[in-house]
């Protein structure tokens, strides 16, 4: 259930973060821009647009006892975890 919401948010967050990363690559900071956007502006804009375009889909989750705050916080925490795992993977690879 929650993963469906997570997937919907990331479907917007990832392209936004990559686009920001491309802009950042001009300055040579592609990865840093991608990850920061992924955890900040990209995430916030994704949640905002989801609320604008699919507000009624929140009731899909409300009916299963999931509040909006719980969905957003859980998504953010999972993103932080993803970023940490990604950084560890990069460090191990380097």
């Amino acid at each position, binding site marked *: *259930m929650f993963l*469906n919401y997570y997937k919907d948010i990331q479907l917007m967050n990832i392209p936004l973060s990559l686009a920001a990363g491309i802009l950042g690559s001009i300055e040579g900071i592609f990865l840093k821009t991608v990850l920061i956007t992924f955890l900040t502006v990209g995430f916030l804009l994704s949640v905002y647009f989801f609320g604008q375009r699919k507000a009624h*889909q929140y*009731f*899909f989750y409300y*009916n299963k*006892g999931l509040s909006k705050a719980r969905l957003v916080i859980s998504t953010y925490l999972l993103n932080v975890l993803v970023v940490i795992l990604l950084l560890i993977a990069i460090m191990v690879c380097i």
Partner: protein
Amino acid sequence: MKSHELTVEGVRFSYGPLKILSDVYLSCRTGDIVGLFGRNGSGKSTLLQIIFGTLDSPDKIIRINNKVYAQPYLVKGLISYLPQFTFLPANISLKRIIMMYVNSIRHRNSLLEDSAVKPHLQKTTAELSGGELRYFEILLVLSSKAKFILLDEPFMGIEPIYQEKIKELIISNRGVKGFIITDHTYSAVMSISNHKLLISKGRVDRVSTEEELKEKGYLPPRQAAVVHSNQEIPAIPTNSEFEIDKQTFKDLGLFEDNRNGAFFKLFSSVKTIGGNTVLMNMLLSPTYDISFLENRRDSIQFFIKHKVEMRLNKVHMEMIDYYLSSTAPRLRDDIFHTIQGWLRSNDKQRNDEHIIKSGVSFLLSLLKQLSQVAELLSGKDAPDYLLAVSSRIEEFISESRIAEFINCKVDPTPADFVKLDKVFRNDKQEKLKTILGIVYEIEVFECLSALVDNFHFSLPEYSGAKEGGVQLAGLFHPLIKNPVANDFTIGETKNVCLLTGANMAGKSTFLKSFSICMYLAHIGFPVPAQYMKTRAFKGIITTINLSDNISEGHSHFLAEVKRIKQSALLIKDRKDIIVVFDELFRGTNVKEAYEASLMITSAFSEIDSSLFLISTHITEICNELKKQENIFFNCFESELQQDVPVYSYQMKSGISEERMGMPILRNENILEILKQAKSGK
């Protein structure tokens, strides 16, 4: 079954300075279906979301089984909510939604096997029509363990077939859940809800009937008539209205509290909403215009003779009405709109297209049927009314240039749908409404001809004379099983009939049968008799089931006096009136009842333009009244066989002195019961 209770108290809500809800209270138990009505913006959805817990309201108290919850939706198994617009993710299949949403394996399997869902399991919600999607959403919401279900506009934009399915679904779940429903399809909500509430000016008021919804401004005061009168089709003359009042309607059992009375069982073969509206309009428009009545009677006669029938499909007719009133954008067939539609395809667009295509197909098939009926109605022996109807139908078909589609046996192409949609909803919409009015009238005529065929009714004969009376052979009460028929003539030479007989001998039933017969004859309908001939009267007033009026401070006697005064005023005003009294002056002592009955009956007998039927137990007045030439006496006989009253229900000439009150009282063993009560057994 365990019962649960949801109570909502102290709900207040404002948008800025605008107060939407103020101190709302409502409750719902397991098994309840609470219908919530209110105009747009009255706060219905807001209230549901406050109850659900996703919208906050200061001081609100939401209790479920006496436990207070701030946000009930966060506690599993308490409450589920169907929002006004679709709430399901658009990009995943129905099967995946079921697997995700429904925890119970039993419910999951039953949903996967549901005949309406199974064919669409691999589709996404975006691929379903509006009705299919709404039905699926409701199934999902009901599959939860929630004790209370809040449904916000479950019928919105849904075709009648799915409305019925959704109603059945709600009713089948009411044994274990409580429902609060709000929807502008008020008739659907009215038909299933056991508590009805109206939100108006921030307050919630209890209502029980459509009349109250009208009084409180939610519904328009009167429904518009379906039939549109015009010059060619004869309309009811407005200056020849037959007078009848509420008390008489009540006595006849035609309309009860402005709703259909028991008498309506006879017309149960009228199935469509439009047909019932036309029937109601006819029943509420009696007239004394003989040529109009003869035209209607001859039309029914024509239907019987030629066995004209259309056998309308109720669901198809509702779909047609829905389609014609739909605001869905018209279909277009140019490349630009095709590409635009393909790019912007969404649920609403698909639903609109489905409504239009179903509506057009059903209308086309109805018009095919109607053109055949029109041919039949233009027969040589058809009355003027039916000839006008037939030419109106043919004129519509030729004017609308749809004859090619009506004669074509191939299904319409997409381009045909576009053309027909334009004709039906744009170019000829008003004329089409008139044609639909005719279709519904044909349905009513079919039903009336069945009354003659199946219920032994007959068509009345009318006498154009200004004087004269009524001849009836084989008159019976249409709601009694195996009724005893009676012959009766009044007004030829004598216009006042005094009816006597023991209790339960059949006096009141006869008076009702006669009154119903007279009323139906003044609508041009078949009557419950083997034969009837009557002249036209200008009104009827009956006093059969009169009760006291506590609110106005009227005792039964005063109510009777007022009623007699009302009858006298009507006679003074309209002259040719039928007056029926069952047991005159039953609300006073024997001595005064005798004097008053004698005085009033004598006074009535002075009026020779009207008919009077009066039943009485005071047989002593009969001897006094025998002197009056225009009064005659009929009675119902009865006899005692082994202390049990036996009735023949046959009316005879003369006066009955029989008394059955005491034997009936003795047979009920009331004294024994009182003796047992005294001895404490």
